[in-house]
């Protein structure tokens, strides 16, 4: 049975309190005397660290329980109760959410600390940290929520914070538009989520709408309902986790400050979709067809965005497309019911992608907000620590053994091969090679060769310790996190998979070691080929290429944005203006105005009754009493 522990409620509450305190202090003082930034920094950084401590406690508390009973719950209050719908604001920590909890609070703590350096001197330093804390609180609600409704609260909360932080530099209109785009595209996904949730509630919601009850009652669902619910929930996931066709917002989201890209748009929020599919694994496992759709969507997203990634000039765009691509891998994993492999990739990806973004942040910081890789070069002598840590991150991303990314990505590819989905496997290996290529293209162009902009190069210097220490810690994580789930082939015992097992409805794909060796060999070969080509082209310095033909097409991301503009945005706007200018003005407005007119007349007539004379009011009362008395006498008959 699940244990009730009250400190669970504190975990999301702490960052929310932090956000409120920092936000209110900022609002109260921003127009007068500014409080010192250090105060805000201490306030804002203490909450993620405290939540991390609590997350560790959750982990050990769970570890102390028997495997089947590993669940901690806490119901804070009944949120609403209408008819059969009884929703409580409650939290659930089981192995899956505890793993998410650990790395979310861990990376969030480091990124909060890093931001102290990165955002130093910013006009509204405190506002940034208030948003960041608010984000963390919402993310923890998402992860810890005990049912779909509470998860949705967090889901919307992180969406809001993502919007606020993408548009953070709001003086620039394009940043604001990027925030709008992220928000609107996410709404499309959310619509799917809400519909899926509604169907699920309609089907089995009246006997409890939290994960534990849903899991117990899932067998009562008709297969068609499961298919529909899973598809709709996946639509939600494609929005939040930037998959085809809704991935277009994530590259634009890079308009936000770099720590935001690291925390929200790489390590935590964008993996919420994967988490959600894993959360609902008890449904997805019954509909392999939907799983296949998920997996193919994922792997195609991985392919397409890897192609884009090979032709980008902006260092953050390269990383953004690589995030989309890695998210694709995760969906391929969870789609093939290898939930623990997908979640494990979420876990390792958080380390190395946060590391890469923060490293990119250091480069951008050192070069005074230059993001074009073709204006960089030779920085390894100027930024030795950043170089080394980013190199570790890149090796992890590219899947070089024994870095963390290798193990997690390989587990996904291996499950694809073992379950007989050769097509997905082939594309996956291809993408692995492309990943190695674009990652090292970035490393070679930025850090090797000779400086392309001598002036910026001269002034570049390593950022302060508050920024480099998180880099080093994340680099250690990126290096070793993979060993936590070492497969038996290498003498490991797959601890993460075993840890997650009680939360997930997983099919283990039993296959021989020879298949596993084939999978590993193919991945390593793809990695080697990718890095070799990158070295040949960029290793010794290269000039900015002129894109033409296919490369130009890929640079412009296959003109998907323009296509969406023509297919959806413009028709939508046209319909909107038609309704607004024609139907609303000429069709619906007439009756509405008529009602308004009647209503106003009625109102003025009634106002006339308020004559203001006491005698008249007394007469009203007497009339009223007489009628009441008459009614009373009538009832005596």
């Amino acid at each position, binding site marked *: 049975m699940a244990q009730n522990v009250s400190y669970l409620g504190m975990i999301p509450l702490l960052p929310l309190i932090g956000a409120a305190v920092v936000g209110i202090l900022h609002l109260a003082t921003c127009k007068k005397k500014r409080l010192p930034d250090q105060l805000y920094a201490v306030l804002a950084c203490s909450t993620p660290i405290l939540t991390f401590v609590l997350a560790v406690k959750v982990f050990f508390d769970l570890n102390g329980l028997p495997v089947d009973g590993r669940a901690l719950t806490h119901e804070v*209050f*009944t949120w609403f109760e209408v008819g059969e719908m009884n929703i409580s604001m409650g939290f659930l920590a089981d192995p899956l959410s505890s793993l998410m909890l650990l790395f979310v609070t861990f990376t969030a703590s480091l990124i909060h600390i890093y931001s102290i350096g990165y955002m130093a001197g910013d006009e509204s330093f405190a506002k940034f940290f208030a948003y960041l804390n608010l984000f963390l609180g919402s993310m923890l609600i998402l992860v810890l929520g005990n049912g779909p409704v509470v998860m949705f609260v967090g889901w919307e909360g992180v969406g809001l914070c993502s919007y606020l932080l993408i548009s953070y530099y709001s003086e620039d209109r394009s940043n604001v538009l990027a925030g709008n785009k992220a928000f609107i595209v996410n709404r499309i996904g959310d619509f799917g989520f809400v519909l899926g949730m509604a169907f699920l509630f309609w089907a089995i919601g009246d006997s409890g709408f939290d994960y534990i009850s849903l899991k117990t009652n899932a067998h009562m669902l008709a297969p068609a309902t499961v298919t529909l619910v899973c598809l709709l929930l996946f639509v939600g996931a494609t929005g939040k986790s930037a998959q085809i066709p809704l991935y277009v917002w994530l590259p634009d989201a890079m308009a936000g400050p770099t720590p935001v890209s690291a925390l929200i748009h790489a390590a935590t929020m964008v993996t919420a979709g994967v988490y959600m599919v894993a959360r609902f694994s008890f449904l997805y496992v019954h509909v392999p067809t939907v799983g296949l759709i998920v997996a193919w969507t994922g792997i195609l997203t991985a392919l397409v965005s890897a192609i884009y990634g090979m032709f980008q000039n902006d260092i953050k765009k390269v990383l953004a497309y690589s995030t989309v691509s890695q998210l694709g891998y995760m969906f391929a994993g969870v789609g093939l019911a290898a939930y623990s492999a997908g979640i494990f990739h979420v876990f390792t990806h958080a380390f190395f992608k946060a590391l890469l973004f923060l490293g990119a942040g250091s480069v951008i910081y050192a070069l005074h907000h230059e993001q074009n890789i073709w204006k960089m070069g030779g920085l390894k002598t100027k930024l030795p620590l950043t170089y080394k840590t980013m190199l570790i991150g890149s090796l992890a991303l590219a899947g070089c053994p024994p870095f963390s990314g290798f193990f997690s990505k390989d587990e996904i590819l291996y499950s694809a091969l073992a379950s007989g989905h050769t097509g997905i496997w082939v594309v996956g290996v291809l993408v692995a090679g492309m990943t190695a290529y674009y990652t090292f293209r970035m490393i070679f162009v930025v850090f090797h060769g000779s400086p392309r902009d001598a002036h910026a190069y001269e002034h570049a210097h390593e950022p302060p310790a508050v920024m480099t220490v998180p880099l080093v810690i994340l680099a250690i994580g990126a290096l070793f996190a993979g060993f936590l789930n070492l497969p038996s082939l290498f003498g490991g015992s797959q601890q993460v998979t075993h840890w997650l097992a009680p939360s997930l409805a997983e099919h283990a794909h039993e296959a021989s070691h020879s298949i596993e060796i084939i999978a590993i060999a193919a991945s390593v070969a793809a990695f080697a080929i990718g890095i070799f080509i990158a070295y040949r082209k960029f290793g010794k310095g290269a000039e900015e290429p002129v894109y033409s033909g296919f490369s130009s097409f890929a640079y412009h991301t296959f003109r998907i944005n323009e296509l969406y503009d023509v297919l959806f945005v413009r028709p939508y706007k046209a319909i909107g203006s038609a309704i607004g200018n024609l139907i609303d003005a000429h069709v619906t407005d007439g009756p509405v105005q008529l009602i308004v007119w009647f209503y106003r007349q009625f109102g003025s007539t*009634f106002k006339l*009754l308020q004559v203001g004379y*006491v005698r008249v*009011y*007394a007469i009203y009362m007497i009339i009223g009493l007489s009628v009441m008395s008459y009614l*009373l006498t009538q009832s005596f008959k």
Partner: protein
Amino acid sequence: MNCDIVFLLPLFIVTIGAILLMLLSAFESIRLEVASALSVGIFALAFLVQLVPIGLTDVLPFVSIFNGMLAVSDFTRIASMIIIACGLFTAMSAISYFRQNNFGSLEFFSLMTFAVSGMLLLTMAQELITVFIALETVSLSIYVLVGYNRRNVLSSEAVLKYLILGAFAGGFFAMGIALVYGALGDTGFAAIAASVSRDGLLHNPALAGGLLFILFALFFKVTVFPFHSWVVDVYDGAPIPVTGFMATALKTAIIAVLANVLLLAGDIRESWLDMLFYLTVLTLFAGNLIAIGQNSLKRMLAASGIVHTGYLLIALIAVSGDQFSGSVILYYLAAYAASTLGIFASLSYLSGTDEKRKEFNDFSGLAKVRPYSAAAITIFLLSMAGIPPTAGFMGKLYIIVTAYQGGHVILAVLGIVSSILSMWYYLRLIIAMYFHEADDLFETSGSRSAPVCAFILAICVLALSLYPVAI
């Protein structure tokens, strides 16, 4: 026996506090702020004592002394808490008001505290003469408060109207008591309940007539159509804090008495169901229609108070007497009180010298000059209009759901329709504040206490919506 004193302690604290404040008024050197702080302290203390739970069933404290004239339960306890909180916030925001309107004096706070003590007694009263005495305690204090600004013609006119009509209604109440006594030889609620459940209400015409008169007087106080006409003029003439106090605390107390009387025995409510139904519908729509025509904010709020009474009547009709917990009614009253007090606190602060700003147009562009005040007012208005995520929404939702479950589908539908109609005048102020240009600087006295009230109440309005009640 030890507990009995705790149950009555809030009443004692408030009454003793009122007397104390009246004595203090003799000293000229004491400033208004001190009296306000003192009354806030009294209310806070009473509120804290009131937190001690009682239970759903009636407890008769000191039976040997009071002979069952008073009864307390969780229903009266929560109602008392709402009343005390109304007093507390009114005392706080009155200070900001008197900074700009110089007719304040120490007796104001004493009278208000007396009114609260009468209201507490009203919620507990289980006997008609006690009800009458409590009602008159409240009324006398409020008459004086309404006419507190002696130099203002409107204020004097208001108190005269209220006094005359109030005396008129009070006469009916006394007559009602006489009839009931004539019929039963007793004025206790228990005796009435016993007689009605034994023989039925209509068996005894004198009893039915007497109760009708009593209902009439209570309906007058809570502005049920067609006994509502006084409310617009009186609310308009009274000083802003008093208007807010009347609209919230007085309504809570009278609704508590109404619930106590109507739910005494199933037959009382059943026999008058048709009459109550028509009165409710008329109250809802009369209130809305009067509110639409108003240009003054105070008059609009007065008229909208009639609508809220309509909602409370829906709840009174729909709840079943057998398992009455009053939670729906109390939730609505709390939500309504928080929003209304919030608006009046904001007005106390913003209305300026001699209440110069009280029309819709006077608040044009407030959001551009005082964004926080405008935001707070918006929260209160949205709550009164019943838009989520505010307490007002949840209150209306519960009432409509109760009506639906009780089989009063027509009332539920009309409740929704009335809620839509009410958008007209609530949104009108929001539009004025946000979409019009400001031609006023909205200078204020700078007193902090009313804005603090408004801030706390805005939080309450949002926080209350998170706490549901069991229907």
